[in-house]
């Protein structure tokens, strides 16, 4: 009996500890993953790294070839700028600004020659992604898949 009570007390103690400390540990860093994809109508090809999103892209676009040019992982604090260089003198700038409920608010900018050509603010579901496209590149376009995760 005494052993059983001990177990229950320990279990409750650990659970309470976890629940009360979790908010302090979480949300300090936003893991942002940027995939730079070259989509074109060339020979059928899908990069292995795009397995998770290809069906969604193919349900919308008529492109037949999807090449993963870059997969950049950024570990950002809130209001910290992350920058991904893109082909064609372009760059993608992402800034997670804060949380709204379980969504991460991002400011996303696409620049060409250091001038902003596209700007958006989105509320991204935690552990989800958004795709933005498409600046022209070679015989197709660039698709930028941005995912965010706050632990």
């Amino acid at each position: 009996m005494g052993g059983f009570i001990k177990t229950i007390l320990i279990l409750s103690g650990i659970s309470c500890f976890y629940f009360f400390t979790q908010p302090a540990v979480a949300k300090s860093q936003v893991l942002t993953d940027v995939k730079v994809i070259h989509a074109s109508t060339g020979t059928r090809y899908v990069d292995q790294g795009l397995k998770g999103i290809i069906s969604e892209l193919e349900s919308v676009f008529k492109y037949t070839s999807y090449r993963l040019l870059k997969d950049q992982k950024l570990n950002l604090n809130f209001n910290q700028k992350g920058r991904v260089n893109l082909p064609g003198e372009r760059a993608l700038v992402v800034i997670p600004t804060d949380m709204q409920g379980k969504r991460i608010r991002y400011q996303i900018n696409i620049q060409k020659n250091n001038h902003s050509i596209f700007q958006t603010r989105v509320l991204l579901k935690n552990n989800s992604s958004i795709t933005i496209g498409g600046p022209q590149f070679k015989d197709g376009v660039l698709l930028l898949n941005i995912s965010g995760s706050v632990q």
Partner: protein
Amino acid sequence: MNNQELNPEIINEQDLVERLKKGQQWAFNTLVNTYQERLLKIAYGITLNREDSMEVVQDVFITVFKNIQTFRQDASLATWLRKITINQCLNWKRKWKRRFRWNHESIDSENDKDLFKESKKNDDPEMLYHEKQMEKKLMGAIKTLPEKIRLVLVLNAFEGLSYEEIAKTLNIKRGTVSSRLHFARKNLIALLELSD
């Protein structure tokens, strides 16, 4: 290196190793101060990242400190340190992925500005600008070299090792060292000419 921290009597390698084995803090300071710049340059040449190279070399010193008792002195301390540094650098990328350490990517142009803004005393600003441009282009070109080629170049340029010594350090043939160095130089010149 701060010469005041170095006791001239202790530069003798055998003595240093014995004091390290005894766990003397003073010997550890000497070890770090004596070798850090060399190892940091090697690590930087391989990883091409200041923060990573510092972490690697810190790990090297920690490894040496913890394993100094097993050091048999059949090779020199410098050789041992160099080999550990190279192995740590080569394992660094694999470790990085395993730890899920997602590094914040520095904004390239700002990072470059930091590294290239330090100017030596030079009366000719045009000459200085030209030198800095050359340095920038060269470092950009070096990033494009395959790691195994860059490794040979780093050991040659930073450590002044002979082909034989490089071959022993990396477990490759002397002829391979020669061809890799030749490849590195040839490609760097070609890339520099392309960007002119």
